[in-house]
């Protein structure tokens, strides 16, 4: 409702259309092959079992997002080397929706809440519910495994996600997978867990 009346119906249609489009037309993509690859400028080393698509635009300084069918249907975040005072995702909307910052004394459970707020701000999530929090590992470090459900504005789909976050040398590392519960989450989660299990943190 912040729109000017003369253009609001056109913009509403445009926004609605963008909402189901994988990415803007100018997005550049690179194929991620089935081999050991460095992600996030080498912050993480992972081995996918199938091909993915990596968007060139980074979600954070040392991070990347992969997808198979478009971000609306599946997205895999690989983010690392987030130090004290830095944000998990780029702080693009500082004046309106600032991102929470990493604090070096955070408990591992605080990382889950950090991710919850950061993810909600990045994707305008209206409802984020943690369904489980368990101890786990990521790159050989103690990690928190978080499963969650979330909702996007005006979206009837049940969306779910699974993330692991860990401290490594005073920096935060994250691998997160989120997708609609219907078909897409189940179709890739086993591979994603294997990627999480075998990841190395640098």
């Amino acid at each position, binding site marked *: *409702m912040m729109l000017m009346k003369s253009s609001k*119906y056109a913009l509403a249609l445009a926004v609605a259309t963008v909402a189901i489009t994988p990415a803007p037309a100018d997005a550049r993509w690179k194929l991620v092959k089935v081999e050991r690859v460095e992600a996030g400028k080498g912050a993480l080393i992972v081995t996918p079992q199938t091909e993915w698509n990596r968007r060139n635009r980074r979600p954070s300084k040392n991070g990347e997002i992969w997808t198979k069918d478009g971000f*609306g249907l599946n997205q895999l975040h690989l983010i690392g080397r987030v130090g004290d005072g830095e944000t998990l995702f780029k702080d693009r909307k500082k004046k309106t929706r600032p991102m929470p910052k990493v604090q070096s004394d955070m408990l*591992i459970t605080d990382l889950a809440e950090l991710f919850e707020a950061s993810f909600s*701000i990045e994707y305008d999530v209206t*409802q984020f519910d943690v369904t489980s929090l368990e101890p786990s590992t990521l790159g050989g470090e103690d990690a928190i495994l978080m499963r969650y459900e979330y*909702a996007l504005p005006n979206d009837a789909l049940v969306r779910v996600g699974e993330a692991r976050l860990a401290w490594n040398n005073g920096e935060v590392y994250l691998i997160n997978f989120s997708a609609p519960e219907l078909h897409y989450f189940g179709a890739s989660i086993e591979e994603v867990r294997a990627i999480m299990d075998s990841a190395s943190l640098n």
Partner: protein
Amino acid sequence: MPFLDKAALAALCIGIAGPALAQDAEQPAEFPPYSVSYEPTDIDERGLWQSFDEVERRVKTSKDLIRDEGLNSYLKQVLCDSVGSDRCDAVRIYIVRDSSFNASMAPNGMMIVNSGLLLRMRNEAELASVLGHEFAHFEQRHSLRIFQKLRGSTDIMAVVSGVVGVPIGSLFLLDVFSFNRDMEVEADLLSAEYLAASAYPSQASADLWVRMIDEDEVRAVERKRRSRNRRGAWFDSHPAPKERSVYLAEAAAEYADVGDFRVGPYASALDTHLLTFYEDQLQRNDFAASEFILDEVAGDNWRAIHYVMEGELHRKRGEPSDLVTAEDAYREAIFRGTELPAAWRGLGLTLMRARRKQEGADVLATYLEKAPDAPDAPMMQMMIKGSQ
């Protein structure tokens, strides 16, 4: 779009609210005459109504819809009490879990109220003023007026079909028909008129907008930006909150009505959802505004749940001084007899972060006794073991 000047506002006051002004405070005003809800007349209008029916069908299945029967029937009752029982049956209210302060009204009678709006209300009268405002858009057929105007200049049905045809974008249709400033003023003043005729005081409308100004100002200071409330930049299509608070206060002064704000019933109705709604607000990383909201909601009647909320507010920001405040708040909530497991969870994690691990582990153990099936139980067990 220019501001309405005072003369225009005064004319609108007379046009909309004139007949009921200056009532004897002992003699409540009557509700304005009501004509039954509008029925679409031609094929385009019927198409528009059907499009909104389709949007409504999707809202009903939306994941973020709050289906709590008690809360839903409470809102309906407040609407009926504020606009009159002959009017309210034309409207269906849907409560959506969304922490932003918003509500919207469709021409087919679908009203959407965000949880972020409910979180910010201090009493039933303020809720009544918002519901009355949205209902006024419906009664004055504002969407229809926009539709009729757009129909003359564009193939609006193509736009409507396009938006509704996009599965994820259905609610954007409400943006297509967002109301203009004159309509917002009209709805504000009609809402004040409803309140003056109801058991609620019309002053509640102005109170609400004064608070929205204050909330944005504390947020602006924290984010080192200018406040949006004094000027119209806040919403192109809405009067600035400052302007709203002034003309609504003037209308309330003219009505000079008395009424019951009903603070207690509102708090009771919202109680089971309050912490969840507040946690959603905390996800916005909006500390100053969240602190302001809590202060306003708790007012001079801080209860145990408000101390839990205060603990969450400070623990989640996590600066060194916050840990002290959070610990005190959780302990106060427990002292006051809260049964919310979040109090023990929050206190335990706060103590652990303050490097008092054994104390924290003991408190977390109590949390697990109170919430053995909590979704984070495995993680908390690990935290307890790790401290030994």
